[in-house]
């Protein structure tokens, strides 16, 4: 590898397009006139196809974007909204710009998915430009990898002013005396970690966490007095045989830890 280079020296900006003020003013008018009639042209600038399929799904019966007058059109000349997906690969720079040029003014550009918004997981690669706004001015960003059809519907409803934007920029600043509570301080740290790890190996980070939490809660609970009884009760309540199996494994961990401690 060469001597380290800073990212800003490496990357040149592609020649993107900017918008004249006049056209920007027209956009407001456009948004009014397209309230219930929206022609969308998809511009895939090098996505993984996930976004494209979800856009497809958004026009199919369950989600039916045509309810709102949204129609996917086959030519950019018909478009009101250009829907850019993908991280803008080098090869798609010119096609992407051509589509923008071909669409009538004013046009709304929606950047779709993590790749379109920022480049996503590919944001700093040599063969991508890192997001739609690197080549054309963007009006709406729809995050997701890929955004689900519902998120797509929301994004369009938001773009058309039917729904309000929910996500706002926030900045939390640490307050005085902010302190993080300990998790199950009553259970020895090593035991908790061992239980949590075993639970994760058995059921994964999500279910494992829930199961471990139930197990630890039972362990820490005051009633009934005997640990074995508490855990037996926990197991007895559980109808899912797989969870029962995992409880068994966790009890084995507990037993091993206790035996080890004892020895």
């Amino acid at each position: 590898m060469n001597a380290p280079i800073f990212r800003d020296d490496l990357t040149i900006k592609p020649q993107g397009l900017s918008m004249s003020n006049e056209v920007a003013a027209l956009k407001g008018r456009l948004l009014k006139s397209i309230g219930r009639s929206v022609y969308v042209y998809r511009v895939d600038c090098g996505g993984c196809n996930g976004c494209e399929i979800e856009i497809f799904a958004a026009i199919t019966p369950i989600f039916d974007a045509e309810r709102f007058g949204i129609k996917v059109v086959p030519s950019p000349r018909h478009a009101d909204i250009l829907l850019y997906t993908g991280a803008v690969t080098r090869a798609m720079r010119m096609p992407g710009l051509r589509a923008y040029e071909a669409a009538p003014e004013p046009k709304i550009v929606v950047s779709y998915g993590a790749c379109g918004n920022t480049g996503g997981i590919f944001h700093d690669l040599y063969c991508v430009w890192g997001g739609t706004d690197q080549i054309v001015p963007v009006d709406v960003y729809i995050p997701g990898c890929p955004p689900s059809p519902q998120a797509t519907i929301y994004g369009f409803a938001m773009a058309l002013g039917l729904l309000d934007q929910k996500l706002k920029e926030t900045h939390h600043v640490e307050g005085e005396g902010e302190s993080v509570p300990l998790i199950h301080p009553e259970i020895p740290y090593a035991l908790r970690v061992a239980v949590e790890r075993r639970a994760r190996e058995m059921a994964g980070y999500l279910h494992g966490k829930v199961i471990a939490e139930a197990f630890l809660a039972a362990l820490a609970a005051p009633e009934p007095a005997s640990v074995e009884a508490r855990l037996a009760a926990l197991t007895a309540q559980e109808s899912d045989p797989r969870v029962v199996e995992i409880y068994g494994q966790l009890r084995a961990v507990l037993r091993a830890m206790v035996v080890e401690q004892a020895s």
Partner: protein
Amino acid sequence: MIPLSIHNPLALLALSLALFAAGGFASLLCGRNDARAIRIAGLSGALGGLSGLVAGLFALAGPATSFSATGPFPFAHFVLRLDPLAGLLVAVISALALVGSIYGLAYVREYAGRGVAAMGFFMNVFIASMLLVVTSDNAFWFLIFFEMISLASYFLVIFDQEREAVSAGFLYFVVAHAGSVLIMAAFFLMANATGSFDFAAFRSAHIPEPVASIAFVLGLLGFGAKAGVIPLHVWLPRAHPAAPSHASALMSGVMIKIGVFGIVKVAVDLLGASGGPLWWGLLVLAVGAVSSVLGVIYALAEHDIKKLLAYHSVENIGIILLGVGVGMVGLSMNQPVLAALGFMAGFYHLVNHAVFKGLLFLCAGSVIFRLHTKSMDHMGGLSRQMPWTAVSFLIGALAISAIPPLNGFVSEWFTYQSLFRAARDGEWAVRVAAPVAAVALALTGALAVMCFVKAYGVIFSGPARHHHHDVKEVPSPMRVGMALLALACVALGLASPWVAPVIGHVASATAGLPDVVLAQGAVTVPGDAGQALLSTPVIAVMLLAMGVLPVLIKAILSGHGRPASRRGAAPWAAGYLPDSHMPITAGSFAQPIRMFFRPLYSVRDQLAARWNGVEHGFDDLTAAARRAEPRWDVEVIDPVVAGTQKLGEKLQVIQGGDFRIYCLYIIAALVVLLALVIR
């Protein structure tokens, strides 16, 4: 015999002929002074055309006038007869001669230095001989002038001296003479039955059935070859394109009509008294239907603009013959209205085709004049540089596609109506044949639309595929020529309620029938108003009126503050860089038709293969001639040339080329022809 005077159309015709003759020889005398030759030939042609046009128009209303003189041959008087049908043909020929000559004033400059003096001569001879053919009333003189047409036009075809032109010319020569021989035979049969070469004698005589039928079939074949009906069309799409464009306009516009004229002349005029059986008409109808459909299908496959137009001539001859066929059917069924309607439809289309096909050839000539190519694949986008030519071509294209309210539609409408009447009122065989012919006509119409969308689109629309950056509109004489014919297309369409009765009279007079009702005020009707109504003026008014509505809608709804329209950077090529291979070409455009009608194209290839034999023979012959040439030079030609050097020099002027080669070609051609005929 009516004496010649200025009030007599025949006198005007004579004046016209004199002008043509004078102009032709004067042009020859100009020698290498091209500019003067062009002017003289052009002006004399235009004046001759003008006076011929007036003569023809006068003659339309009849009655027939004739002029007779004793010629050098005791067995054949020189008789000219100007009846309404001849008048119609004279008018058409003269009109195109007029326009073609004006057009030629600028167009012929293209040929400067390549013997324009001779071209002027041949053009004028060509026109004059056509005028003489349609008016001569004696079989012998008819044949003489008929030969003159062939010869003059042969020289026009081979004018370019290119390999293709020369070989096309040869084929033309062979077919034309084969046709003449058949016509000659037909006339001999009639002369044999009547004892005279005068048409007047044929007209009044009653020729017995088998002989009349044989004469008719011989005439149909002979004139059919001239008209270019399928399967005798092979020469046409090769010869017409080879000629200079104003000559092509005359060949396609009027010369092939001589063929139709001949068929009518033989079947209706000369054998009219004998009364043709029904199958004559049905045969003509069949020939017409086949020619129209195949003609247009073959046209669709062409990339060469002039070949495309030439194939359309085959198609339109077919359409004309549909009308003529119905007329003949009507005659034999003793239905005067049907007969008059049929002939009228045919004659109307004859006039119309002359006008729009002439126009289209002139437009094609203009494009070739600027781009120096006949291939449509190297044209494109010319409507911006050549707006006059484009608009003229578009009018011609709409007219030939039978788009209302232009002239082509009117005559096709009459053809449909005559077919409808035949289907409704005719005998059983006719009732079956007429709808089939109507379907053929409908198919032809749809294909013609496709073909001319292709032609106009590929030549004048879309992106340019040529590399001439400085293409500009053609000089004014050419524009005037095109504009005159374009106006004629519009006028013959819009004025149909007034034109139709005139042509109807020609038809009735030719067939010896009473006039039928063809117009009531501004409305045309096919014999009776119950059958159908049509008013081209109303259509035109409605189109204009309704044209306002979308414009208004757009103006009102599209509102203010909308961003100004703009021209995009490129057509949308699915995001890729557009290139010059993406816009559709002539070949690709017509490919679905080539795919769907594949069997019909193989018919053409079969026919063409038949004629290939002739061409191979020609190739061998010229090759042999070339090998033998030195010997000829030494042993035969040199002494002759040396002996008649002065004469030789004069003769060389005719072609400005190598006269000896021509002699050889003609001799060789005659030999082959003889061989073919004898075999």
